[in-house]
């Protein structure tokens, strides 16, 4: 099946993935994606009509703990150590609201 993914769909996937691809990369990624999807289509051979999707193999669900603050021992500065840009104990990002 050729060209099953349009350039528009590829661009949309790129937006969801938060990736900016050059037109060339986009073309190549589209080809790879198509090849994978053709392979994945094999799953359509299976009848899964009354089957519940299995998100987790064991029935462990609703694992909650009390909503209590637990201070991180390393402190604020240690968390900020890995920040690409920081100022006055905070992460710096480009302006988010115009």
């Amino acid at each position: 099946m050729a060209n099953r993914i349009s350039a528009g769909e590829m661009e949309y996937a790129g937006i969801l993935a938060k990736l900016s691809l050059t037109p060339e990369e986009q073309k190549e990624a589209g080809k790879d994606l198509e090849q994978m999807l053709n392979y994945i289509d094999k799953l359509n051979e299976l009848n899964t009509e009354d089957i519940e999707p299995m998100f987790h193999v064991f029935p462990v669900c609703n694992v909650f703990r009390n909503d209590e603050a637990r201070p991180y021992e390393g402190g604020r500065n240690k968390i900020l150590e890995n920040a690409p840009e920081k100022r006055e104990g905070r992460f710096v990002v480009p302006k988010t609201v115009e």
Partner: protein
Amino acid sequence: MKLTDLTAVELGRKIKKGEATAVEAVEAVLAEIKEKEESLHAYITIEAEKAVEKAKAVQKRIEKGELLHPLAGVPMAVKDNLCTEGIRTTCGSRMLEGFVPGYSAEAVRRLEAAGAVMLGKTNMDEFAMGSTTETSAFGATKNPRNTEYVPGGSSGGSCAAVAAKECFFALGSDTGGSIRQPSAYCGVTGFKPTYGTVSRYGLIAYGSSLEQIGPIGKDVRDCSVILETISGYDEKDSTSIKREDTDFSTVLTKDAKGLRIGIPRNYFSEGLDDEVGEAVLDGARFLKEQGAVLEEFDLGLTEYAIPAYYVIASAEASSNLGRFDGVKYGYRAMEYEGLHNMYKKSRSQGFGKEVKRRILLGSFVLSAGYYEAYYLKALKTKALIKREFDRAFERYDMILSPVAPATAPRLGESLKEPLKMYLSDVYTVSVNLAGLPGLSLPWGQDKKGLPIGVQLIGNAFGEKKLLQAAYALEQGLSICTKSSAEMGLR
């Protein structure tokens, strides 16, 4: 006999008796690293000085009688997707090239509390996405058996380091075979436990519903002791399971009598290399001689495991890797216009090709209009595959199979055809989909001199029986055509 010829447990015993020290052990391993690392590149980061300091401190506590654990003083290596406090953790990616975690993964913390001494962080496929360790942003690792071949992946650095005696044991992670397959390629023993047995706290997530941390060691006993140390409930991982039966090192008897072992007939059909197939059947014969009951059977739906796996793993990856946005940690692009452009540029420059490929696939299968057709379909397939295994384990204690369809490929061969690389996971991924324990044990080698691995797959929580069978099988290594001793493992 060199110190580095010992297994982890043998070394621990020697240190306890005062016949060797933790510092000597670290120095012996550093000597191996000095000799071999340039040609192998098993490590991304080596912390030689820190390791010597830690070994000194551990040795004092051993002498005072404060540390009694079998692994006290034993040098280990850790896959670079496990966070280590104060030590760079890259996940094999430019994205995290300078990332120094503020805390350690629970599995690492438990081993260090037991007195194991970490030497450094091992190479891996970028974000564990790959089967050869060639997608690492820091260059490929070579197979210690033959440096023209890949070590497998994604835990290729950990397996190569153990095989080359550049550590006594290592931690790896297994999302679709990433412990078992490189263990087979390098001729070491690797164990992926039942989902939920080892806390994933501090493991940089790829496919959360599939992956487990596990041991890579020189033999079955080492793996059982390491697994026992890192297992156990942890409230910091919401998928952690409360189980009491984690005293895995207590079950090692050479007795395979009465164990019911199924051999999936369809695993031995098309696509399996003859030499690998013969080796696995040779292992089966040995277990039969030890009193195990072997039977061939049909394990259904095996051809659907890989497509289901790639949908689920990529979907989870696209979500898990959303956190890499260039804000709190990791790479940030130098030039950008506005917030969203910063996200996009940072991610596009920070991630490698294979990672981007899987994030795109994952985003696509989760997107509106495709979610049901791809993602839910894969999860339903997963339920059916689990059912096939449940049916098999009604009749058998475990399943014996190959680990991979062939021995290690040459460097550079796999990346040209990603789909072909994905297919090499055919015998391992279904184990992750069903959450089962799986162990890879070396069993001979092919004509090229490359190791062959056999896989034992257990029922959920069936680690003890699995270890018992593996231990029995391991006894046959000395008589199997090309033993690991001949290959220079021990």
